[in-house]
């Protein structure tokens, strides 16, 4: 086949899968109200997907903050502007770094776990068994995971920001000697709750929807073999990363 033919076929396949994913999202949204009757399923998934991701998010947030404190202090002190460190740290974290880095970490920790779990349920015929018992797997398996991932992502983003702010405080104030009052007052004075903090949380919510949809879709449509599940898990990471970065650009353009 010619290169043009290959490209056309790939594009058509991409559009087809995008359409299938859209229809799948419709099925999930329709199943959520009924699924919420089994509230314990949702709590369990929120624990597994959200709470179990806390460690990686908190540790990563702390280190990102530590590095930001060091880098900004070094750069800003050259211009005698180290007093703006709090502002710069908070704005870069709230607007950009927290939602994006937390989302990339989240897709690696929770997205892959969701895909692998649903894919294994598919390959061990558990999904098929549910369908045979007249239980809709979208309602029982997919919807709770989708909702939990969507809700967990903005909360994890806030936790990431909090730990990063602490990390930056640690390196800039406690280690390099920036004034504690200047660090906090510059932050309080220049950060807007709605346009900075909430805008970042909104981004995280959108990233949560994207990662959740990609993860459940890849798991549900995985080939029922070991290799198929492995491919699906890999695709979740790759597609999530691309989707997060692409939507970050789009959202930033609209929210600025």
């Amino acid at each position, binding site marked *: 086949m010619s290169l043009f033919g290959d490209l056309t076929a790939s594009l058509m396949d991409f559009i087809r899968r995008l359409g299938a994913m859209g229809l799948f999202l419709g099925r999930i949204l329709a199943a959520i109200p009924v699924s919420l009757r089994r509230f314990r399923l949702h709590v369990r998934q929120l624990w597994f997907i959200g709470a179990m991701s806390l460690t990686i998010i908190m540790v990563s947030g702390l280190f990102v903050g530590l590095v930001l404190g060091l880098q900004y202090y070094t750069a800003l002190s050259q211009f005698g502007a180290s007093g703006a460190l709090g502002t710069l740290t908070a704005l870069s974290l709230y607007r950009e770094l927290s939602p994006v880095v937390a989302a990339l970490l989240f897709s690696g920790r929770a997205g892959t776990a969701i895909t692998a779990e649903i894919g294994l349920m598919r390959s061990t*015929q*558990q999904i098929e*068994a*549910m369908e*045979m*018992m*007249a*239980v809709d797997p979208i309602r029982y398996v997919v919807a709770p995971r989708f909702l939990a991932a969507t809700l967990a992502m903005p909360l994890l983003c806030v936790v990431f920001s909090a730990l990063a702010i602490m990390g930056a405080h640690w390196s800039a104030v406690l280690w390099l000697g920036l004034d504690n009052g200047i660090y906090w007052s510059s932050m309080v004075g220049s950060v807007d709750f709605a346009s900075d903090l909430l805008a970042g949380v909104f981004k995280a919510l959108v990233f949560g929807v994207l990662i959740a949809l990609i993860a459940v879709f890849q798991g549900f449509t995985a080939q029922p073999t070991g290799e198929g599940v492995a491919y699906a898990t890999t695709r979740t990471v790759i597609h999530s990363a691309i989707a997060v970065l692409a939507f970050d650009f789009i959202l930033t353009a609209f929210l600025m």
Partner: protein
Amino acid sequence: MTAVANPVAIRGLGTVLNGKTIFDGIDLDIPSGSVTAIMGPSGTGKTTLLRHVTGQLPFDSGSIQVFGQSVQDMALPDLYRLRRRMGMLFQHGALLTDLSVFDNVAFPLRENTDLPESLIRTLVLMKLQSVGLRGAAGLMPAQLSGGMARRVALARAIALDPELIFYDEPFVGLDPIAVAAVVELIRTLNQTLGITSVVVAHEIEHLRRVADRLIVLSGGKVIAKGPIDEVLANPQPMVRQFLGGLSDGPVPFHYPAPPLATEFGLGGVR
């Protein structure tokens, strides 16, 4: 609900998967109250047939009636309603690994009925008692042997008191004691509850003990069907090859390939 003489009636079923013809216009009936075995060489589409009958996989032509209702083009809610009258034992049990044995059996009851938990407990323990595993109610699937997992899956399959039950390779990988237990259970469930049963399996010696009727599939067609003793005495070469376990015959040992000499570049050698 009206009783039908043949809970499953298949007419002119045609299926092509990935360019390969799986079924080429097959007709068959599963009589009410019978234990019907379906046999055939590997890859002949036995499990595919079950997936067609249960509405899990669409087919290309013909019709399948289950309890007098056409499964093709059936809306999902109608299909689920129909499936509540069926049970299925999967090849490896397909137990939900995050639920205990008790919760696995309770699963279809909790999801499909509004029964109080006390009644569900009674029903689950009765089902587990019938497969001899009431004492294992608290175990997790990972703690069960293959035979025990199959029996728990059977208890789950009969939880909603189905009128029709499908067994997909129920004897594979089981030790002789577990096989005997599964054979006994299939027979007992059929006789005591009157469940119509369809068993897909290869093991003739086990099927002799459990089935009333036998259907042999090969090459996309039904090559023999009827009471099991009649089919076992069928003189057709293909049936004889399959039932006799002969490696070569009408079903060739070799997958179609070019001549060996051509493959090795020995043009003149035959």
